């Protein structure tokens, strides 16, 4: 069945194609069936292929055709399945299918219903290409493709110029990273004469010495691509604006596709980072810095989706931190768990916003736990998982592993651990601030209705995984189950640990458990049942600074955007053209001058002749 791998990718494309051509004529229910069905079939196929793959985990390569062959650059349209890409395609198709099902109800009344599903299908298909591609160029196809789909979906409600702005911002900012990624291809091709990922990974350690300039440059360029797509410092600014998209899109963007691409890229090219230790350390530092900065911003948002957006940036920061300290399996484990609970949070938030008549402000909600019980309980489970409440949530096992390894890995340090633990505190604080404001306290508005089954089912399924997904990988001193790391380490190297006392891990676990619980308690004290006015909260200057995402936008606007726009405005008419029009002007003036001498008056001609004669004679006789 492994040879059906290509079909997993092809199905979403087929769905998009059918909808694009026939969507306008099909009844809405049938369109929805095609849109949801294609991705669901992909998910089922992934399960089948994955089940077979578990029996024999040697990487599997399927070449569909050769893309082109020009003087050594001969990339394939080929899919490479190993344990890492299997985890990714499982999450993409499975979570993707649930989100599609949810969208069928959520988007039912929209005018561009078919358009929506075309883009969503494409999004899933291109993301699958990204994680399955066997060479960097084909990966880049998926990479750019998801950028396009994010643009189209963020700008889905295109009538509002603000949405268009957010969409363009997302595309352009990520393209900055893409340009860096493209440059890395030049270097890689020059050195290895191929862009096939596996070949590069095999040859790189033999060709490049550890820490050599070219290796470091390449790793940094790859990192540039990764921070763009994954919304890490300094290119994180597009993600909060991307909330202009419909909620299911946000769920897909944040959980299964797009933002995890950077994590995948670094994990996939891990060898190149290992031979460039500086670059790998930078990955960790970027992750740590991002998780703190984004966490602080999340604390001061009033828009429920913005809280989640900053939370995604922050959680991807954890994954980067894990990648940077060589905790490859921990990063992928957290990616997986994060996909479940973050998709659930967005879907839950979407449902809340929907039934509250497009109200995004948490301060205008409240008391919803009785009115929307299923949404509330599933949202609570996801929030607990995000906050990493000890023992009972999946998020605890995945995040605690990163926090522990930030200290215990040979590339870790006390500073990184501190950032991670402070980040964990902030995470729990803003998460439960959001829960208490939205679902408790006095009801400030009535929901219009309860969501139907197509919304409820994805919520419940995702809630189950947000709770139970963590038990497949348990710490050494609590059952010692290592399903995920065993699986991942068939492809990626294991984390090297410092030799520490066994009791150290227990102490660190207790610390992080306590930190999370204390944060929830503080959130309870500050936000539970407090009579906040139903409006945008007042903020002082510092809070405003955090609210605005540390004013990165302001800096970029002033430093880059405005000068560029100014430059293009003043030179709209192309200064170079002035030279040619100037030439034409001079010619025309000369023409005027000369034709003025042709005035038909005899005395004028006579005078000219006389003057000319005198001049010539003067020149002849007085040289």
């Amino acid at each position, binding site marked *: 069945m492994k040879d059906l791998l290509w079909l997993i990718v092809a199905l979403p494309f087929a769905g998009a194609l059918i909808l694009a051509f026939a969507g306008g004529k099909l009844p809405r229910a049938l369109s929805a069936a095609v849109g949801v069905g294609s991705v669901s079939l992909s998910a089922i196929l992934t399960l089948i292929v994955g089940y077979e793959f578990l029996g024999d985990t040697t990487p599997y390569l399927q070449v569909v055709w050769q893309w082109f062959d*020009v*003087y050594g650059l001969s990339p394939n349209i080929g899919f490479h399945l190993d344990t890492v890409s299997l985890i990714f395609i499982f999450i993409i198709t499975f979570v993707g299918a649930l989100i599609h099902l949810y969208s069928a109800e959520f988007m039912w009344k929209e005018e561009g219903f078919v358009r929506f599903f075309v883009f969503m299908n494409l999004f899933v298909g291109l993301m699958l290409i990204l994680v399955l591609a066997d060479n960097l160029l084909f990966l880049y196809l998926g990479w750019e*493709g998801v950028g396009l789909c994010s643009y189209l979906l963020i700008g889905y409600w295109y009538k509002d*110029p603000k949405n268009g702005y957010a969409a363009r911002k997302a*595309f352009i900012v990520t*393209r900055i990273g893409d340009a860096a990624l493209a440059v890395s291809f030049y270097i890689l091709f020059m050195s290895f004469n191929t862009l096939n990922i596996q070949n590069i990974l095999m040859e790189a350690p033999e060709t490049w010495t550890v820490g050599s300039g070219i290796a470091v440059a390449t790793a940094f360029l790859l990192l540039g691509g990764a921070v763009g797509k994954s919304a890490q410092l300094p290119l994180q600014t597009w993600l909060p604006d991307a909330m202009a998209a419909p909620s299911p899109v946000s769920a897909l963007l944040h959980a299964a596709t797009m933002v995890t691409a950077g994590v995948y890229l670094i994990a996939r090219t891990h060898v190149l980072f290992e031979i460039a230790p500086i670059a790998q350390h930078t990955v960790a530092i970027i992750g740590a810095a991002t998780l703190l900065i984004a966490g602080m911003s999340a604390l001061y948002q009033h828009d429920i989706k913005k809280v989640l957006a900053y939370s995604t940036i922050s959680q991807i920061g954890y994954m980067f931190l894990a990648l940077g300290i060589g905790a490859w399996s921990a990063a992928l484990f957290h990616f997986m768990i994060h996909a479940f609970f973050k998709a659930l949070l967005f879907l839950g938030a979407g449902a809340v916003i929907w039934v509250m008549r497009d109200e995004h402000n948490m301060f205008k909600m409240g008391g919803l736990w009785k009115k929307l019980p299923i949404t509330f309980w599933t949202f609570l489970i996801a929030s607990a998982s995000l906050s990493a409440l000890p023992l009972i949530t999946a998020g605890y096992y995945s995040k605690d592993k990163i926090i522990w390894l930030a200290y215990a890995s040979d590339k870790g340090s006390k500073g990184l651990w501190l950032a991670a633990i402070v980040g964990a505190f902030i995470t729990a604080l803003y998460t439960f601030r959001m829960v208490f404001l939205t679902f408790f306290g006095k009801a400030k508005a009535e929901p219009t209705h309860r969501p139907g089954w197509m919304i409820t089912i994805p919520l419940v399924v995702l809630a189950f995984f947000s709770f139970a997904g963590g038990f497949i990988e348990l710490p050494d001193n609590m059952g010692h189950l290592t399903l995920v790391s065993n699986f991942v380490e068939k492809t990626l190297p294991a984390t090297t640990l410092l030799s520490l006392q066994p009791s150290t891990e227990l102490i660190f676990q207790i610390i992080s458990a306590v930190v999370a619980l204390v944060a929830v308690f503080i959130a309870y004290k500050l936000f539970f049942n407090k009579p906040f006015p139903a409006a945008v909260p007042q903020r002082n200057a510092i809070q405003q600074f955090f609210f605005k995402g540390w004013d990165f936008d302001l800096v970029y606007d002033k430093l880059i955007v405005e000068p560029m726009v100014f430059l293009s405005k003043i030179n*709209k008419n192309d200064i170079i*053209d002035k030279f040619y029009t100037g030439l034409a002007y001079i010619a025309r003036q000369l023409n005027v001058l000369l034709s003025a001498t042709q005035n038909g008056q005899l005395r004028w001609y006579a005078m000219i002749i006389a003057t000319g004669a005198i001049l010539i004679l003067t020149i002849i006789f007085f040289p």
Partner: protein
Amino acid sequence: MILVWILILLIGTGLLAWLASRWSTFLPKLISLVGTLVYFGITLWLWLGHDSGIDSEGWIISYTGNWMPSFGIQFKLGMDGLSLLMLLLTSFLSVICVLVSWKEIKTRVGFFHFNLLLELAGITGVFLALDLFLFYFSWELMLVPMYFLISIWGHEDRIYAGKKFFLFTQASGLLMLLGILGLYFIHGQNTDVYTFDYEQLLGTVIPKGTAFILMLGFVVAFAVKLSTVPLHSWLPDAHTQAPTAGSVILAGLLLKTGAYGLIRFALPLFPEASHQLAPLAVLLGVISILYGAKLAFAQTDFKRLVAYISVSHMGFILLGIYSFNEMAMQGVVMQMIVHAVSTGALFIIAGSLYDRIHTRDLAQMGGLWRQVPRMGTMGLVFVMASMGLPGLGNFIAEILILIGSYQGPFKVLTIIATMVLITATAYALRIIQKVFYEEERKVWVIPDFGVREMIVMLSLTGVILWLGWYPSSVLRMSEVPVQKMIQEVRMSKSGEKEELGSIDKNTVYNGGDFLNEKSMDVKKENQAQKIKSIKTE
């Protein structure tokens, strides 16, 4: 002989169409549609029936006839893989041009089609000529009909644009004539054979300084056609003012004659001088890429915006050609084709929009997606193509040029050129935003693309997708000609004779390393030694 028949077919159809306009306005359209379809059929047949095994043995088809033997002027035509690709492109676009002018052109229909087909004949001649005099003749033949197309059927400022186009091309064409004559006389003095024959003129020994000056004559003419900054300023006016078919031909074919001229004539005739020129040419190429993109972003006129996109895309061609690298050169060939398709399509969209709302001002559009979703979808596809989105043909071209030229000596400039990925996104998304997104600024009640227009757009979409996913069909055709060209140029540099024609991957691999003389073999050996030493340790 078939090559001659193609020219006769085009000119004959043109005359016939003009004649037929005496009786009806429908007949000329039909005649030129049939004529161009036959042309397209012939090139398709040539392409499909072409056996790539014999590519290395010279021309696929050639024809030599006497013209003015006393001056050494022949009627010599020849077609290799590169010309065949160009002919395919020309014939494909000529059908498209006839179709898009179907309703747009309402006055003097017969004369319009006469000019259109004469223009196409000139272009075809340029792509086939192997005699420099014939080449110059065809080159000038392209000029006059295009001047009429712009000045008679163009938009409001057509006279000005037509004159500007004429002056730029005419002046630069004269420089080329001087270059041709200089070459003719030097070759004559050297060998006592006075001839314009391209193949005989190859390898003429010319003093270094003279060669550079003569080459400049050629290069300036080609650079004007390529609209290289700072010689580009005719292009925005001409493209904007021309009728749709004119814009499509200008962008799709006329600009390509410049690129073709560089590849076919400037490089092989003056290999050493080309090396001297390379740093400047690449620099100008990169400037064109970025400057064009920046200006495109600033425009408020839809067609003008697309015109500046052309400036930007043509910069890639200069960058690719003067990197003297097979991969970059293959990218150039690809770029010639995909740019014709993508920019042509954008001009068609702009043109059909103009037909419907009678303005090209972006500020008057907006929110059109709901009114014309098909047009919007097509617009999206080709806007994405112009910004080089993978999966569409332009990506293949750009990435080949960029990776290829990075292997050569101009690494920093290549990296700077890569920034166009960002600027291109900015101008491309601006089109979508201003035309199709946002609220409607004015209420237009306009029909969406009809059947005829959809046939045109879907065939263009098909081509751009096909080239994006299976570019081999083009790249395979141009492989041998490109390789010959590069080796000729490289030979002059290194002085060593390499076996032409045979494709030996190992010699091909060292594409860019002609300057530091470090071949892939040496590299591989070094690698093997390293591995050994590591293992023994």
